[in-house]
């Protein structure tokens, strides 16, 4: 059974996911195995934004989700530093390929 078919995440799911994009009432989330799924935005924590890391855990049979702000900041900082380094010696002005 998948979340898409039933409109709610499977209860066996734990770990983290990352919000790739939000559009209307849907959020595209990247699961721990790298695959993406479209989840109802309402199934994610209130105030969730693109790029947020969301932690999932099962408690008393219920699946609970919370935004992991520290993990989000860490991932964002590392990814931005990596990209900035990649972009650093780029050519200026017009150029030929």
């Amino acid at each position, binding site marked *: 059974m*998948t979340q898409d078919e039933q409109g709610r995440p499977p209860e066996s799911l734990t770990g983290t996911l*990352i919000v790739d*994009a939000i*559009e209307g009432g849907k959020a595209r989330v990247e699961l721990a195995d790298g695959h993406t799924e479209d989840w109802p935005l309402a199934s994610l924590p209130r105030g969730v934004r693109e790029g947020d890391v969301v932690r999932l855990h099962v408690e008393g049979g219920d699946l609970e989700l919370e935004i992991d702000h520290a993990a989000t900041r860490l991932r964002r900082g590392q990814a931005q530093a990596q990209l900035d380094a990649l972009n650093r010696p*780029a050519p200026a002005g017009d150029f030929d*390929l």
Partner: protein
Amino acid sequence: MRQLLTLVGLSLGLASAQNPGVLTIRFLDVGQGDAILITSPEGKSVLYDGGRSEPRLQALLRQYGVQSLDLVAASHADADHITGLVPAVTLYRPKFFLNNGLAATTQVWSKLVAAAQKAGTQGLLAKDQTINLGSVKLTVLAPPPGMPRNEQNLNSVGLLVQYGPFRALMTGDSEIPETRAWLKKYPANLLGPIDVYKSIHHGAKNGDHSAWLAAVRPKNVVIGVGPNNYGHPTSEALSLYRKVGATVYRTDQQGTVTVVVQPGGRFAITTEKGGPIPANRPAVGTATPPAPVRPATIPATPAGVGTPYRSCAEARAAGAAPLRRGQPGYSPALDRDDDGVACE
């Protein structure tokens, strides 16, 4: 007779991306997402976005005989635009990776940047500059200042492709504030008229709007779209394209859409399956849509009987599961592990 021979020659040449003497732009059928392959008359190639599937993009690059990539571009960092760039960078080691300068937190983004580092690909932060792809001029439309940095769509990188009088425009998943800012920033004669235009954001509600399209004046619109949960393309976007008199092509209905531009600007649009949507008027000007051409290597879903199932539950209820790639009703959206078998 001469015209017929020209068409036959053109059709035979469409199997390869390296078609000397012409500009070829392929709006690749990558399901729900965008991937556009641009090859100059000199054989230099650019991949603007890569769709959401690594194996799918890799198969398409092989199918079209791509020998090299000089530049890959991510319009923005969403997974349905960058996933296929990972194998593109790994396999072809392009010289440059054009990007909007805003890193994503996803695993696939990290994988792409790591692949670029390993391949020796130079990052290229989008700014207003021109990149000459042989005789083809690529004008980068950088995200305008003031766009919120936490919104990838609003920081999409645009690309204007010019070859003689021919002009194509693609602007990722831009939303209205970005296109409004571009309208203020660029002169009207830079933005339009456009011969071939990539629909913004797969035909979403928050992309194209009448003021923007009044400037762009697209003659032909290609929508990169597949089965999706977002309602793409929306009736609002389709209505806008109809109102500006554009002919609409959709990769979900017609497969890969190929534009071949001759020196002097004459161009032809062919599709993998079927013609443009009949509700739209035929293109005016120089476009000449010849008979559909179906590339030979990847089997396509038979036209007319291939409406994808919306869910595996629906496929199972119809007794059709599992579905293999190429079978009627198969959809990459249902093939979560991309192994060619859906609803296993």
